[in-house]
């Protein structure tokens, strides 16, 4: 009964979304207030219906209803409750439903919080969101019905892929989707602006919070995924330039460019066409990511099912939305004449440089990700593009990007001179140099890590210098505290996000110094790595709720002093017939001690031991970046300024009429 209810709710949501799209577009075109007024309640209705469907699926997973095929394929009664719930979106059907649920949530937010939007803009935005939701609902109902029944029902389900049974991964997809789908809203705003043929400062002010929110969630989602890969896959690495990882990095880069260029639209009414283009691009790359991951084109833990009909359907949706968006752009972009003028050396100029470099990085990553597929299809060559390619190709672009990141905030709008800005940064440069020299002195001639430490210090102290200058810490130290409190949160947020990237780069530079060692140890034997002594005490059997494990006990000492006892495990899941390695990690915040249990033989075990300096800061930095985004989002300006802009827009409307 519950699955049928969910299925019905999905159908209802499809109808409501189509109605929302139709009424919204027609109403805004004819300027009929009654038709336009229908769009927000329809968005709420669609949200209710999708929410209902999602709850029905969660309920089916929670009670382990084995008549539902998605449950049979992906769940098991012995699984812990958290993974029963997270298993709802740990499979293709459920994850698409989550995608649509978040889209409906976004549309609901536009309907609920967007009361101060001009009604034509709001209904157009809702209409576009409705169109997107309708496409994906049709995709779910047509090719990947989560509520399909099996008869006769099997005794129990097949279980979830064991490496996905992890708390980090329970939240990775929802966060990532919040990011992907958030860009659907900026896409909808861009399409609405193209239909209207008008982009102004107010538009920039409405788009920016969405871009910020989407970007912040995407940052968290990517960081969580990378962290999961680090501790769960047990390879000691954190980023593998896997196509699936790149698929999430691409919209992040485009979104990062978007939220910077939207500032220029908001403050200076320049870069309008470019910002609209970026808004289209960010969502296009999000959809491309969804396509790559969901269609089974790529083979990885993410590719749940390779059903060609699904791939073709998503590709069709991708063509429709992205092609439609860009065709509209080509047709209407002329209408948006720029009004703001600025010199190349200015805050706007710096933001243009940021956009240019971010987009270049995105282009390089895109080519590297898609080329193997292209080569296979067109040239018939089996090729893979690995980390060396991405490292050598993106590093030369990242260096000027990071260099400009600290300087940009010191540039005034409209017209600036480079030298005074650089003069304010002399102590930052000194600190960065000191960091690089310290690294060289301690670790010998290692160019990569030294460069990394330089960049990290440059960004962190650059962000500090930015805040210090804004509050006048050096000019009027006494008044600084008061000014710090009065500083707009957006300023704090920006500095925090820039500093957060510095922290992440600190972690990356530290990981550049990581060492590892492979050793075959018998109980009682020990091995030394990076000043720590790892002694194998023994290996024993252990049992979990749905797995059996071999568990090693490794005592770690440093110069005779006890540090920690680690328990790396090898788990075998009888249901999935899979074995996974559970790395044991001890962090001192300065470094991670990371031990993986290998195979057992000759009365001993193979241990792979990593010493990863500064590793936790990679994800901590990402958290700081997202926090900066959130702080920026809570700025009064994003909330208060909107009604004023509406009044201005109304005035403009009456003048035109």
């Amino acid at each position: 009964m519950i699955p049928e209810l969910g299925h019905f709710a999905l159908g209802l949501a499809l109808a409501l979304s189509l109605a929302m799209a139709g009424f919204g577009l027609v109403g805004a075109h004819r300027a009929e207030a009654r038709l336009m007024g229908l769009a927000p309640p329809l968005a709420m209705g669609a949200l209710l219906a999708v929410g209902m469907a999602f709850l029905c699926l969660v309920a089916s997973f929670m009670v382990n209803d084995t008549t539902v095929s998605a449950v049979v394929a992906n769940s098991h009664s012995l699984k812990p409750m958290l993974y029963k719930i997270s298993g709802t979106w740990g499979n293709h059907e459920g994850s698409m439903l989550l995608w649509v649920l978040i889209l409906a949530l976004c549309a609901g937010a536009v309907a609920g919080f967007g009361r101060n939007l001009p009604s034509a803009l709001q209904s157009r935005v809702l209409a576009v969101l409705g169109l997107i939701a309708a496409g994906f609902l049709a995709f779910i109902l047509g090719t990947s019905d989560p509520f399909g029944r099996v008869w006769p029902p099997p005794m129990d389900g097949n279980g979830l892929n064991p490496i996905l049974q992890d708390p980090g991964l329970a939240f990775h997809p929802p966060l990532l989707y919040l990011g992907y789908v958030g860009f659907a809203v900026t896409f909808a705003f861009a399409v609405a602006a193209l239909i209207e043929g008008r982009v102004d400062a107010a538009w920039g002010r409405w788009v920016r919070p969405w871009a910020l929110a989407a970007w912040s969630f995407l940052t968290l989602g990517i960081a969580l995924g990378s962290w999961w890969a680090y501790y769960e896959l047990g390879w000691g690495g954190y980023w593998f330039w896997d196509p699936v990882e790149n698929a999430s990095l691409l919209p992040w880069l485009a979104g990062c460019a978007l939220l910077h260029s939207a500032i220029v639209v908001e403050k200076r009414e320049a870069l309008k066409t470019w910002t609209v283009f970026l808004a289209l691009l960010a969502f296009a790359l999000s959809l491309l990511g969804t396509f790559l991951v969901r269609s089974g084109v790529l083979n990885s833990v993410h590719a749940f099912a390779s059903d060609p009909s699904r791939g073709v359907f998503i590709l069709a949706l991708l063509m429709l939305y992205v092609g439609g968006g860009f065709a509209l752009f080509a047709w209407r972009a002329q209408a948006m004449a720029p009004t703001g003028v600025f010199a190349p050396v200015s805050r706007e100029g710096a933001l243009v440089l940021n956009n240019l470099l971010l987009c270049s990085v995105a282009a390089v990553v895109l080519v590297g990700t898609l080329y193997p597929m292209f080569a296979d299809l067109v040239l018939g060559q089996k090729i893979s593009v690995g980390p060396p390619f991405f490292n050598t190709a993106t590093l030369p672009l990242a260096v000027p990007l990071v260099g400009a990141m600290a300087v940009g905030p010191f540039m005034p709008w409209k017209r600036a001179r480079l030298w005074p800005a650089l003069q304010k940064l002399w102590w930052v440069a000194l600190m960065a140099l000191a960091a690089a020299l310290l690294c060289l002195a301690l670790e010998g001639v290692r160019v990569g890590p030294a460069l990394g430490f330089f960049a990290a210090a440059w960004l962190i102290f650059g962000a500090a210098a930015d805040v210090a200058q804004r509050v006048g810490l050096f000019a009027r130290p006494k008044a600084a505290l008061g000014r710090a409190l009065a500083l707009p949160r957006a300023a704090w947020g920006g500095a925090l996000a820039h500093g957060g990237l510095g922290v992440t780069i600190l972690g990356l530079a530290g990981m550049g110094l990581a060492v590892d060692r492979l050793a075959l140890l018998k109980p009682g034997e020990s091995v030394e790595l990076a000043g720590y002594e790892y002694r194998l005490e023994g290996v024993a059997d252990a049992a979990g709720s749905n797995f059996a494990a071999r568990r090693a006990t490794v005592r770690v000492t440093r110069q005779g002093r006890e540090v920690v006892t680690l328990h790396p495990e090898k788990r075998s899941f009888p249901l999935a017939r899979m074995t996974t390695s559970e790395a044991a990690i001890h962090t001192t915040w300065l470094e991670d001690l990371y031990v993986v249990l290998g195979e057992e033989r000759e009365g001993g075990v193979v241990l792979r031991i990593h010493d990863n300096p500064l590793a936790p800061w990679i994800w901590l930095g990402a958290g700081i970046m997202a926090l900066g985004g959130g702080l920026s989002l809570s700025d009064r300006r994003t909330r208060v300024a909107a009604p004023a802009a509406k009044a201005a827009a109304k005035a403009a409307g009456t003048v035109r009429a």
Partner: protein
Amino acid sequence: MTRKKKRLYLLLLCGLGLGSATALTLTAFQDNLVFFRSPSDIAREAPAPDRAFRLGGLVESGSLTRSTEAGRPLARFVVTDGAAKVPVAFGGVLPDLFREGQGVVTLGKLGPDGVFMASEVLARHDETYMPPDVADALKRSGHWNPNQGAAPPASSWNTLQPGRGGG
């Protein structure tokens, strides 16, 4: 500065960015593209000695030996596609899903003695999974005609004779 001139500067800057991105991509491609080779490919045409590539095929049943050399565990096994075989040496922890008789993809370089020195061994999936590159190599070596149904069980593949295997 006129607006036209400014637009020109902007365009030049964009061109510069795009140009440098293209140049970077192409040079990086030149050095870092990793080709996939099956054992038959290697038998037909020996790859350049310093160039890393991916070798894929099936791990021959009974070929896996493990030893310890200079304190490091070393695994040796043979990768085959039915028509040709290549010995592989790997100094590291084999992945959890590594099994004899199953598909595997390894990354490394071919040594002068004809032994493939692997730096990475990928076997990330469950035991029924066949890496697509490997499946393709097996098709080309005549071991499996996809028109005649699904692939035979992986564990039996390396005992089949080329030409009549796979139905």
